[in-house]
């Protein structure tokens, strides 16, 4: 498999993950014996029908909730598994959410320096210097003293990625981060993300609904089944990185998009049928 650059950290391994949600009288099996092995520096795209359990899986890696069974390791270290019901959230696995979660009351600079200053791994001036560098790399110089509300949605997303990268994470967990953007802005976000990844090849677990996004960004696409979530199809995208938007017209690219579409369509149909069956008493 082609990687942007060799790295050794960020090997995320999910083994036999199961997650059952229990509320008063219903049990929902959200993730069912799901295994994934994500290599250091890999961009792994997860696609699957709505409500299948993708966020549930990502939140278990992030440490926002536990698994019912199974284990998750990062570089061989147990995050969550037998004897450890829930991973501890930490800066080695930073999450970027669908609707954005910049802190509205902090300027861009304060947002970006939040991680290292909270962890006390840097002094204020060190953090500021690094933040300025990261922001400049992302084409965001001059935005340091603005509040998030004063930024366009595209800029906000780039700030958020910069804020995540400030923590030197081993894995970046992206839960449909570009869903709310228009397609033009999204295309720019994609190129910016790949540029960032070329500079700093962090492992990325990226959830999306958008198959073109998945093919354009990913080293690999994992298509999840309808709920309960488990991988039904894995596809290596053999288009060399760094990629830019010229590849979207290539035959190879279109071929990947089509086969992913077929797989997802099948799962969507199953999911729809399952929901119909569930809806009937």
């Amino acid at each position, binding site marked *: 498999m082609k990687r942007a650059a060799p790295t050794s950290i960020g090997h995320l391994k999910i083994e036999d993950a199961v997650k059952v949600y229990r509320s008063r009288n219903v049990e929902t099996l959200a993730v069912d014996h799901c295994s994934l092995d994500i290599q250091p520096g890999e961009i792994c795209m997860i696609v699957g029908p709505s409500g299948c359990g993708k966020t549930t899986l990502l939140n278990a890696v*992030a440490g*926002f909730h536990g698994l019912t069974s199974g284990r998750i390791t990062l570089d061989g270290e147990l995050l969550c598994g037998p004897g450890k019901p829930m991973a501890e959230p*930490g800066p080695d696995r930073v999450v970027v959410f669908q609707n954005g979660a910049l802190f*509205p009351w*902090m300027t861009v600079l304060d947002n970006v320096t939040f991680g290292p200053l*909270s*962890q006390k791994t840097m002094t204020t001036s060190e953090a500021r210097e690094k933040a300025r560098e990261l922001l400049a790399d992302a084409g965001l110089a001059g935005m340091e003293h603005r509040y998030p509300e004063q930024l366009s949605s595209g800029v906000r997303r780039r700030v958020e990625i910069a804020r995540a990268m400030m923590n030197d994470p081993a894995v970046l967990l992206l839960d449909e981060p570009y869903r709310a953007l228009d397609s033009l802005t999204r295309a720019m976000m994609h190129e910016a993300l790949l540029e960032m990844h070329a500079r700093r090849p962090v492992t990325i677990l990226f959830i999306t609904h958008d198959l073109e996004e998945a093919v354009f960004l990913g080293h690999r696409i994992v298509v999840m089944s309808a709920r309960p979530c488990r991988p039904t199809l894995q596809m290596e995208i053999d288009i060399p990185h760094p990629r830019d938007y010229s590849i979207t017209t290539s035959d190879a690219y279109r071929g990947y998009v089509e086969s992913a579409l077929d797989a997802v369509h099948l799962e969507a149909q199953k999911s729809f049928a399952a929901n119909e069956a569930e809806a009937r008493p």
Partner: protein
Amino acid sequence: MTPHANTHPGAIGRWRTLPSAGRRAAVSLIVMLLAWELIAHSPRLFGFEVPYLGVLPAPSAVIGEWVMLLGDAHYWGSWYLSFTRVFAGFISALLLGVPLGLWFAISPTMRNLFFPVFEMLRPVPPIAWVPAAIIFWPTQELSIISVIFLGAFYTITLNTYNGGRRVDLAIIQSARSMGASRSNIFRRIVLPGTLPSIVAGAAIGMGITWEVVVAAELISGGNGGGGGGLGLFMWDAYLAGNHEQILVGMLSIGLAGYFSSGLLRRFGGLLTPWLSRN
């Protein structure tokens, strides 16, 4: 003509440079005052008394009385007394209400234990506490302040609590994923995230304290207490049959409330610079 004449626009020029909101406010104020003046003189002007409003003293008379009172130490003493009571009650409501609201917001145990009691006491109007307050507190001053405190306390607590609960879960989770400790999350996420609601609650609470202070002063002062303040100022005017002074008292309270809420909003705006204002 003085050499500076050109740098000073005439009255018309100044009027034009006023923002339209200010111009509209001025127009409505002037129209209202004129109508009031006419109505007050209705028996003489039209030969009949406009029902209810005809007995009001004319604004010119009220303003005349007011101008006279501006040199009166007793009038300013009433202002001072009411202001200190409002301030004391309001600050203690802030000091107790904000921590309690935050505590309700972050601790389910606390919420389960005390929120029902809080919600049960809340509908009791502050004025209904006056008799109990007079019995309970050793001095009349403290009873008045405690009633004012209640006026602001519920609103501030409830606003803080609601604001605290509305802090976006994704924001807290992302702070956690960046390695923030619990105390860090409280200080840098929950507290600033709740601040706009605290400011809003404080501004509403401030308005209520002015509603309450007058009634509290009327009741305790009317009881032979002689507690002073704008409330008692009005009561005395009523007993003396001085209608102009009653209106001066009412307008003074309106102004006092308007200025203190305005000041609070201004200060709140400085505390929450990230909120865009139009």
